[in-house]
């Protein structure tokens, strides 16, 4: 393969992607909202790369009725290292922009795509874990279930809505920005 330097504009686009990746650390990535007759205002789980927000205690209080394990930041080890992984990815992206090397960009895209899929798989794994490993001692017995990663679901008296949030969209946009130079400078 001929050594092809990427254009300056491509380098700028990749830098933008790096900024987006870095900035996404400060925004929620994914969330779930629960609405029931006695909670018309809704209860939220909001997941950041490094923390959980929302009405976690209240949701845990309710989940114990169906024997679901309590959520806490400690129960997700990812939250402790994800910021570093994402930070490293941002730095790597910046390096790629600076190198302006197409092969590096290819590599980065592969790492990125692989990481993204891994992330989605991880989320799915947790949803399966929490939804199916229900305690046998639960006062209310329900069929094990897997909440969707995206979209609406009904469980007992709660309508749940899972959604990707700002941070995830920023990562998606960053991914598109990484592909853009390849497309722009295609032969």
């Amino acid at each position, binding site marked *: 393969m001929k050594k092809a330097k990427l254009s300056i504009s491509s380098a700028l686009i990749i830098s933008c992607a790096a900024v987006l990746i870095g900035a996404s650390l400060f925004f929620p990535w994914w969330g779930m909202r629960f609405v029931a007759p006695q909670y018309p205002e809704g209860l939220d789980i909001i997941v950041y790369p490094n923390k959980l927000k929302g*009405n976690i*205690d*209240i949701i845990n*209080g*309710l989940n*114990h*009725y169906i024997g679901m394990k309590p959520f806490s930041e400690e129960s997700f080890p990812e939250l402790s290292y994800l910021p570093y992984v994402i930070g490293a990815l941002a730095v790597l992206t910046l390096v790629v922009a600076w190198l302006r090397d197409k092969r590096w960009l290819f590599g980065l895209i592969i790492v990125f795509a692989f990481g993204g899929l891994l992330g989605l798989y991880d989320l799915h794994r947790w949803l399966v874990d929490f939804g199916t490993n229900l305690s046998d001692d639960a*006062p209310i017995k329900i069929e094990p279930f897997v909440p969707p990663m995206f979209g609406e679901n009904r469980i007992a008296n709660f309508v749940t809505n899972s959604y990707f949030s700002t941070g995830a969209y920023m990562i998606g946009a960053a991914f598109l920005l990484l592909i853009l130079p390849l497309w722009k400078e295609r032969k």
Partner: protein
Amino acid sequence: MKKKWISAISGLAVGVLASTVFFGDFSPKQPTSTASAKTNAEKVYVPFGEKDEYYLFASGGHSGQLFVYGVPSLRRIRTVPVFSLDSATGYGWDEHSKKMLGGYTWGDLHHPALSETNGDYDGKYLFATDVANSRAAVMDLKTFTVKDIISVPNTSGPHCAAFVTENTEYLFLPTRFAVPLGDKYESLDDYSTKYRGVMSAVTFDENEQKLNIAYQVALPPWSYDLSDAGKKVSKDWAVITTYNTEEATTNLEINASKEDRDFIVLFNWRELEKMVKEGKYDTVEGQKVIFPEKHEGGIYLIPVAKSPHGVDVTPDGKRFIASGKLAPLLTVFSFEKAFKAIENKEFAGERNGIPILKYESVMEREVNPENALGPLHTQFDDKGMAYTTMFISSEVVKWDPNTGEVLDRVPVQYSPGHSVAAEGDTVSPDGKYLVSLNKLAKDSYLSVGPSHPESMQLIDISGKMEVIQSAPVDPEPHYGQMIKADKIKTIEVYPKDEKNPYAVFNQKDTRIVRKGNEVHVYGIAMRSKFIFDAKAKRPDVIEVNEGDKVFIHLTNIDRDEDITHGFAINKYNINIEVQPGQTNTVEFVADKAGTYPIYCTNFCSALHQEMTGYLLVKPKQ
């Protein structure tokens, strides 16, 4: 061409004219939805999902409670226990409330007073007094719970309290019954020399949430009835009505009604404050007591028609209006005139060392609405107009304090004691509603036997006065304060107090600690279980020995809106409440061996019935 043009225009004009004549609507425009077009039912109806415009805090009299209503619906929202035990909320069983009640099981709650900033309600605190046991209480309007109660020595029955000064610097507690200082025994033959009607100046420390007695004034042995603090120009002053200046000691009905005149006590609390600072006081029963006969200044008497009840300061702070319970007239007094008379020392002698101002030099006018009898209490609207309840003629009379002219009157059923207008005793009354607090409800409601409920009537005062709603009431709301609902900012969940050594926020930290014969339980309540010791075989069981002193510190870790838990022990006479996020403590001696179920009293979830445990008291060997 030109002709055609003219005929087209004129044709059009004729058409418009004709259509206007035939189809035009010349009837006067009817406004579609004005207050006056609303029926009374519509005016008071608050649909589900909407909320009332005002909170009404009504004193619960000898129930020892405070009643909270919404206005205009007159729906009772809450009963707050203040001076009485209340098993519905566990008030009087947990350590804090037990200590505050100090062994008394009831009180006679009078005259709730909202805290003020610049003469306007600030919605932060509410004060009340106990006529039965001489106490003062403060309730936090964030939680609608009582924070502190103090006993006031040297005094008995602070009836006309509490009233607060313009920035809640003080609440004053003048007493209804004259007693010897220190509650000592003294013969009634020495009434005039040994008895006193002490007034107490109480301060409230917001940070510590504590009431304190700053000083007292040993007023003459008369009965003090109602009072009000000045505003604006009169902000350093306050007025109190007093009867039994006859100093009668028996059959007061006759003997305290002998003289034609009683007094209004006018005092300057800034000057009294200064006297205390300068050491012009005696210490009695640990209190700094000013004796007016020893240290002159700051206190004056104004003659008033006999046996006065109400005395109310106008919103502009310029006048005060006294109502003679037994004299069918109201007197409008002028602060300015009083200040001038004091400056010029226009005194008509003195009583018990206190200078008397001349009635004529303070009085502005006498108002005597035709056939209106028994004027008691005056409230104000946004235009400064006065509304006075007539106890004997059962009506509310509206009149103009500037001219004395009677403007309107409306009958009420029956015998109104006090009334409360929307923010009606502040510097800026709202002028929308007035609630008449009636003493008798004869035949107004379904019968509950010989003792009828009392009655509250809502009067629309925005136009011509009209009674638009009536509600039966437990005995006996006789004074109230009405505050705009949006001024009160309640909390839904107690904030996590990490510094509280008794609080446990994690189930894993629950534990039972034994120290000699003391057992300390650090437990939690959550939907739907108690955990007293997470590591125990049965985490919801407390096992002690007969004779142990047991302390149960319970935290409600459900920090979720409206999830309150109760904690009761069968046959141990124990019942406390833990509101969301709250930590509460109960203390008792396990003096009965046996098995005692523990249960949650406050419905909390579908598994509330299962929220139980046991107290096991092992018998002494």
